[in-house]
């Protein structure tokens, strides 16, 4: 039971917020308003579904093709800006959510990437990962907005990695 709760914690929390939201809306605007909101949600799903499927196929295909360990030899402590740039590019191309990306940090660290490159990698994945931008941000908020934000934040992982190399926080991959 507890493991079930742990595994589905976010599902349950979001479900609870959704139920509260539905109840509040029902009370304020009545049943038909709840129905309209559900219909909007369904429309949003239909709108996002083609990108979602394409994004997942692309992510799964890339995972079969890429070998992250091979990249890490360019990401060592002596790799300078070039290493940070490789890490930034690798982050943008990394598909999938946190369940895929964070374990990859361990793989890269094991293959020789230093903490600056790892911070640049994860920052780049989270800010500009292609899947998130193409599947969600561009369709929902508009391509103009997505391009603006991506262009502005494109060099930022390099900066984060540069700072991380200078911080007195040593990190060893957990055994």
């Amino acid at each position, binding site marked *: 039971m507890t493991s079930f709760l742990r595994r589905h914690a*976010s599902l349950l929390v979001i*479900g609870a917020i959704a139920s509260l939201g539905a109840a509040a809306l029902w009370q304020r605007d009545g049943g038909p308003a709840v129905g309209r*909101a559900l219909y909007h949600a369904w429309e949003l799903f239909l709108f996002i579904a083609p990108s979602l499927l394409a994004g997942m196929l692309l*992510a799964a295909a890339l995972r079969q093709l890429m070998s992250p360990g091979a990249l890490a030899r360019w990401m060592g402590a002596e790799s300078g800006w070039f290493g940070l740039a490789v890490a930034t590019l690798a982050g943008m191309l990394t598909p*999938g959510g946190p369940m895929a990306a964070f374990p990859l*940090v361990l793989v890269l660290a094991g293959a020789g990437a230093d903490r600056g490159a790892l911070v640049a990698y994860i920052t780049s994945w989270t800010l500009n990962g292609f899947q998130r931008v193409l599947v969600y941000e561009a369709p929902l*908020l508009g391509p*103009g907005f997505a391009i603006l934000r991506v262009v502005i934040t494109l060099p930022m992982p390099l900066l984060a990695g540069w700072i991380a190399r200078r911080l007195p926080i040593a990190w060893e991959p957990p055994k």
Partner: protein
Amino acid sequence: MTPGQIFLWVLAVVALGFCLRRGPGTVHKAGIETGRNLIKILPMFAVALPMAAFLAELIPADAAVAWIGPDSGFAGVLLGSVAGGLMPGGPFVTFPLVLAFAKAGAGVPQMVALVSGWCVFAVHRIITWEYPVLGWRFVALRLVSSMLLPVAAGLIAELVVEVVPIALVSR
């Protein structure tokens, strides 16, 4: 289909083509992985999209204007960055919510800060993934290194939109 969706499908087909060159088994594996991920994500969609839709109805139409509207300036950018970090869940939860903010009158630079703040800080992701997999020291290293980035992104966006006007899509 929008041009972005067509682009994504082209990329997916090309990547699957490369898989096919490695043998049909690789394509099969990719297909199985896609199916498994879809099964995992669909229940999330089933609760997250209605949640966002209900909240969008409940948030008054001009609620965001005073806090993170186009004229809220630096304070709005700062608030957006912090609020972004507190938003729960993956992109399927966050972007519909962000869309609700956009409809409620948020400004473009403030939205840039909000989305970037969610990307960088994501408190919920730190607790569920980053800390257990990589440990507190990595979390501290990353947070200190990228603390200022969402605010910087918002301020740069403020300068850019004065030159290039960019409209938010509101469906």
